[in-house]
């Protein structure tokens, strides 16, 4: 066990954790932020995606010690009032069904749009192919990413 400082959504949390505990479980069980989801535990489904220093990572496969003192952004940190452009696009395109995978999908889309503000279909495939949606919202995810790109140009 070790005392670790997590910087989640610009807020510091001091936790006592096994340094090998995946960041996912530290965020969910120790800090208590539950927007980041457990889906597979082996970096296959993308439900647990958060940003680590701005880059999308699978929090289920990163030890909490690696994230210590670094900036971690979860879905809750994107915006809590849905003012973020990706969240707005997700609402406009009515993407979620069950909604469980969408935190991860949105975090991946948000990272994609930061590096490619006007992504092509291939860019979208590349960025999103690690994310499973069992409800099959893929057509709407694609539309929503394009809608978000449009919204960004209107700012």
């Amino acid at each position, binding site marked *: 066990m070790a005392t670790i400082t997590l910087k989640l959504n610009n807020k510091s949390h001091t936790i006592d954790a096994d340094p090998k505990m995946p960041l996912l479980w530290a965020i969910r069980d120790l800090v208590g932020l539950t927007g980041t989801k457990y889906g597979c535990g*082996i970096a296959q489904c993308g439900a647990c995606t958060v940003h680590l220093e701005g880059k999308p990572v699978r929090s289920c496969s990163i030890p909490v010690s690696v994230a210590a003192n670094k900036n971690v952004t979860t879905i809750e940190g994107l915006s809590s009032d849905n003012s973020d452009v990706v969240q707005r696009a997700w609402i406009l395109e009515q993407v979620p*069904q069950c909604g469980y995978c969408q935190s991860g999908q949105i975090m991946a889309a948000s990272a994609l749009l930061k590096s490619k503000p006007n992504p092509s279909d291939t860019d979208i495939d590349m960025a999103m192919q690690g994310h499973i949606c069992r409800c099959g919202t893929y057509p709407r995810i694609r539309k929503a990413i394009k809608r978000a790109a449009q919204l960004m140009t209107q700012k």
Partner: protein
Amino acid sequence: METADKSLSRRNFIKITGLTGTAFTLGIGFSASGKDMTVVRAVTAETTNVEVNAWISIDTQGKVTIINHRSEMGQGSFQSVPQMIAEELEVSLDQINIVFAPGNGRRYGSQVTGGSSTIRGSYQKLLRLGASARHMLVDTAAKRWGVKASDCYAENGEVIHRASGKKLNYGELVTETAQLEPPKEVALKNPQDYKIIRKPLPRQDTPIKVNGKAIFGLDFKLPGMLYAVVERSPRFQGKVVKFDDAETRKVPGVKFVLKVNRDEFDNMREGVAVVATNTWAAIQGRKLLKVDWDDRAFPHHNSDELYAKMRELVKGDPISFRTMGNTAKTFAKAEKKIEATYETPYESHSCMEPLNCVANVTDEKIEVWGPIQGPDWIQQNISGHFKLPPEKVHVNMTFLGGGFGRKAFTDYPYEAVMISKEIKAPVQVVWTREDDMTIGPFRPGMVYQCKGVVTEGGRIGSFETKISGQNMDLQNPGADKSAYNSSDTEGFLEGYFNSIPHYSFGDSPLDSPVPVMWWRSVYASTNAFAFESFLDELAVMAEKDPLDFRRQHLGERYQLLIDKLEAVSNWKAHKKNEGLPADASAKVGYGVAITECFSSIVGEVVKVSKDAIGKVKIDKVWAVMDCGWYVNPDIIKAQIEGSIIMALGAATKHETTFKDGKAVERNFDSYKMPRIQDTPEIEVHIMDNEEKAGGVGEPALPPFTPALTNAIFDLTGKRIRKLPFSLDAIA
């Protein structure tokens, strides 16, 4: 007994909704005879024997609260139920607050969200409930103004006097209205006048599903709650001989290790639970646990043994379900006839939210929270097993991260309750992805043997299907294994039974220790592959266009759907060489399938082509849904898109196989899912008619796979009769 429960139910309604007694509350339900639908006031409900199963309430601010008695697992009941109430009540959607109903079979009727039944089972009731409340509010306003009710109307949460333009907000009317008796009869709106129903209004649960605020089962926490993972027998029915937890207990955070049971179709399955202060510690502790299983009492099958058995079984005489004429004799005498066998795999539900459940057992009551499709079943199950009256068993639904049939099952809440009772603390049982994918129950694998005859005139002379696979109803102890399976025809168009002179459907159930359960669209999800592939084979034999071949057997409702499907997919223009077997050298293939289940009919056309390197790809899917009366076209569209993509996975990506009695595929690295880049363009159309409401969440799944394989036949001349297959492997 009834009265006590009703009075409790109203109190609970008030408690759940936070409403005070001053609100105007109406319920609707069926009288004891079960025949007459009755609208009742809250006070009356306590003294009559009406089984109230839906409530609405309006408070003095005009805020409307309704209880959603079905779970929300993505299919949109959270949106469609308020949309129905808002229409007849004449309020806007943002005036409605919706809350989940706790499990109570006596109060809400069946709450099991399955069979695509939320709308079709309740829409007439909900419309009437809204309309009754509106009429009563108008009466109150008219009385206060001293005018005729017929001179007033309701709009946007207000009653308006037509001549003077005077207005009263619903909130100002509720106290008096609560004293009125509901009308015996009430006229419902004409669908042409709908303002909210049939509109693609955005879902109210979307905002909280894009910012992490929606609480799924796995997100639910109680103060002092511990986390458990359970080691269960990898061979399904094994019993715990002994376990060694010495290493497990050394893991920081591990608090308890104990033997537990899980109620699987009234059979007690065994496991060992590791309970810790966080999920990760419980998972780590379980890795170090050593369990000796006794699994000698049942066979340890491999998949090939299961399928070999099924292939034998379909050769024998089935338990007959539905027959007409004499298929055996007709087949024996016929000249134009074919026979084909189709096989479909076992599948995991693999909801994105793995199974989980929170339980808190105290001296007074048992309380359960989780992603639950069947709260009333769970209440009944827990009440029976733990010997507590049902009102002391509270079952609460969170949002479900997918359900697809798996979360209608009572095993996982039972296990959580047992652990909480033993350790005397609130606990969340978490199933890892590997648990979720290997413990089951699964969609059963099936084998279909079809025999068919084509007449001189190019019609179906005889259609016979013998089915083998595990019957989901035969798993409880004492189940009647000689009973027929009424789902043997699920997916087949009802219209064919009026026009095919000889038909027979029956099944020979497979006995296996593998637990099986409904998977989205249930038997139709596999039946349709056999039926609609075989119809395509018969059409080829009859040298007829697959749409025309179907059309000649079907009545008007089906014909309208076929016409629509033909038009939107531009079928005629693309079907070169009409009436001839497919041209194997063509670059584009079209396939169709039309199925019927849960009272809806869906036709799908799939277009496939070969890319530059000769690889087959799916270019586009057209779907036409006839679900009769409907609420929200955008939710229907979403459900159809999702159904098609889920079918695509089961057709071309994943299956559960068994080796030495254990499920082989344990996570998404081997159970491959369709991804965004695999998804074709999907175009959806909905039929507008006056038919009764049918299901929406499931009926679009069954036709996709046969439409796809029929298209591949059209393109390549190769008939795919076994699922799953890889698109990459088709040359």
